[in-house]
């Protein structure tokens, strides 16, 4: 057991004028995760600290936060793996409003999902029909498969310099891609149209931060570039063959 100095963002917007950073000395072993250090502050040091968690194994995507300057999952970040394990600094994700201390309001983040209409729709398939026969090695599936591992943690959103007010942001665009590529879904055109707007795929400045921080190694940035090309193709098609309505 050694000890680490954990510096934590404390902020209750209802009573504090501005955030402060508090230091806590926390004992750590090889097995201790950053999430564990927060539990320690909470349970042993009797702080009323707010942070979010559920699965403690990288599945629910609840414990996203900025750890030593990088958006990560606290439960999947072993203190011993950090470049500087003695000094840990945690603050909430960027680009989302703080509820209290380390928790952010994810509504804005999921609102972007609503904009690309995440609801799957098929005219030919329903509860009574057989499921589609699809080659797992098809290009379609190869493109979709790695991108459905998203756990909605918001790390990419925090790492993105453009995310915020209107830009759809990396995770929602990634989701759109999985639906657009899915031959079973019928709303491809509508989704591409939304992505074509100024704050759709064109909002992306191709800095690649999203892919760098994604704990599930999703090739998000590459996917956005792919959709830019699709959007152009779609735009051209629209201009040449305008729909009748």
């Amino acid at each position, binding site marked *: 057991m050694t000890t680490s100095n954990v510096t934590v963002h404390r902020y209750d917007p209802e009573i504090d004028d501005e955030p402060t950073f508090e230091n806590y000395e926390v004992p750590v072993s090889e097995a201790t995760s950053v999430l564990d250090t927060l539990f320690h502050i909470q349970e*042993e040091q009797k702080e009323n600290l707010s942070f979010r968690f*559920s699965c403690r*194994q990288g599945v*629910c995507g609840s414990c996203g936060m900025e750890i030593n300057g990088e958006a990560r999952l606290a439960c999947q970040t072993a203190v011993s793996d950090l470049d500087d394990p003695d000094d840990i600094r945690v603050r909430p994700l960027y680009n989302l409003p703080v509820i209290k201390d380390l928790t952010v309001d994810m509504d804005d983040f999921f609102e972007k999902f609503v904009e690309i209409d995440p609801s799957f729709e098929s005219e030919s398939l329903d509860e009574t029909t057989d499921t589609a026969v699809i080659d*797992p090695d098809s290009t379609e599936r190869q493109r979709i498969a790695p991108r459905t591992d998203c*756990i909605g943690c918001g790390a990419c959103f925090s790492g993105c310099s453009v995310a915020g007010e209107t830009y759809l942001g990396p995770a929602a665009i990634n989701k759109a891609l999985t639906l657009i590529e899915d031959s079973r879904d019928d709303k491809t055109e509508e989704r591409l149209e939304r992505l074509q707007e100024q704050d759709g795929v064109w909002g992306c400045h191709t800095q690649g931060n999203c892919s760098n921080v994604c704990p599930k190694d999703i090739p998000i940035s590459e996917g956005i570039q792919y959709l830019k090309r699709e959007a152009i193709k779609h735009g051209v098609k629209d201009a040449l063959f305008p729909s009748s309505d």
Partner: protein
Amino acid sequence: MAAYEERETDILIVGAGGAGMFAALYADDNTPDDTDITVVVKKLAGKSGCTRMVQGGYNAVLHPEDSIDRHYEDTIKGGKFLNDQEIARELVEGAPKIIRKLENELGVFFDRDEDGHIHQKPFAGQSFDRTVHKGDLTGIEIMTKLRDELLTRDVEFLEETRAIDILTDESGAGAAGSLLLDMRRGEFIAMASRMTLLATGAGATMYNISTPALEKSADGQAMAYRRGARFQDMEMMQFHPTGLLAGDTKLTGGVIEEGIRGEGAHLYNGEDERFLREYAPETMERSCRDVVSIASYKEIMAGRGTENGGVWLDATHLGADVVEEKFPGMTERTRNVGQDLSNTRVEVSPTSHYHMGGAVIDEQCHSDVPRLFVAGEDAGGAHGANRLGGNGVVDSTVLGKCAGEAMAEEFHDHEIGDISHSQVTDIIDRVTAPLEREEGEDIYELREDLEMTMWECVGVVREESELEESLDRIESYKERLERVSVPGSKRYNLTWNEVMDVRNLIIAAEMVARSALFREESRGAHYRNDFPEPDDENWLANVYVQQGDDGMETSREDVRFTRIHPSELEVEPTIPNTDAVQGDD
């Protein structure tokens, strides 16, 4: 005077795991547009609970050579004949429909065979390979798609809002809503409703080593109990044999899947003996889940465990490359906690996993309390004494659907009733009391004591004297709970929430301990050292608990064999002759 907001909704759903989300989906599908459906969830919707954590998969009959009858028989055999046979039937019949709903209407894409059809893998206890999955992230896929779908529907979500208690109507008999706490703002909401569903996923976390999501604390079960609901087979708590021991980190209890033992990994006690020789010389580490759990637990409790109270799981003889290649996720998980499955032994222990027992329901998920529905792991009946891997998520989704449809059909028959102001203020006074106390008991210590008691006295192996002891201790925890003090304000106060959690866990723990004391035989997940054999003559019976005038009352009734009688099915040997342990979550 306690302050609270008053609101109303037609259908109130508590919990947003598989059961809660499916109930919302089907309630919305089957009601007019102007119906108010509200889902309250302690954490984030679709991003909490155990359905999200499902790795292994989903049992459903899809193949022409498989049959509903076979799935049904497997389920009843697995349950050692304690299942409610009608609910079990509902489950297996509903499963293929849910798979089609998920794929065709929600866009889930399960793994495929080479020929492009849904792939189904073998799971322990099945007579046919019928487990549908998406890699080993099946739960994420199901919950993400459910969330995506519901985001676009007219269903209101109140996130980080916990239900505290069920409110009753004037007669005191039926559920008329629930008292909620908006945890972010620290404010109470008295939510009146016509129909209420509890789907909070039970409380296997009552043991110090456990697999489930951390927020689950038997809230639904305790809420239903306090309003008089009846419970069955609460002693049936399933343990997974190999939970990772990672010191006092919250990762402790996370599952190391059984495939590694199937591959040939060995188990050693603290004295370097392959102890399964003593318990199951023929099948050794490849024995069934309960056999391995019992053997490990006995070694640990006899003082022959590792220093940290576990046993060693050793896969090193398989070769680092093989382990790394075949079990990358598991290897990574052990590395995260400073161990390394590919080149060292790792410490494991049986870990509490799933609660087969729960509120008594019928096939539409009605509990014994009028207008109160229960679904998913909060409810009992479907799995009897033992749940098959892959049948848990079937239970939550199929019964969630049944509850959603039933609420949609019945809500018209009831008006939104008046909520009793005094009932609400009584509850608020009680739950806020710890915030008023300057000094008192520490809730985290209390929780730890409860968890240790459950582990030591109501664990994998049970005995009369220890069970009696556990009840004494639980009694003392109730008193300590009344003296707990909590620092800080009401806003987003995790410690305060912990107090409400422990209050519920204590009730569920007592139900487990009392039922375990009552059942004088060994069957399925329930093993009594003092009655080590199954006793079909006396115990083909369900154990019930319910609140009585003088506390908890226990009773029993013979199982109703409405479809199959035990004599009609071949009885399974205690230790099956399988070559390989199949995956099984």
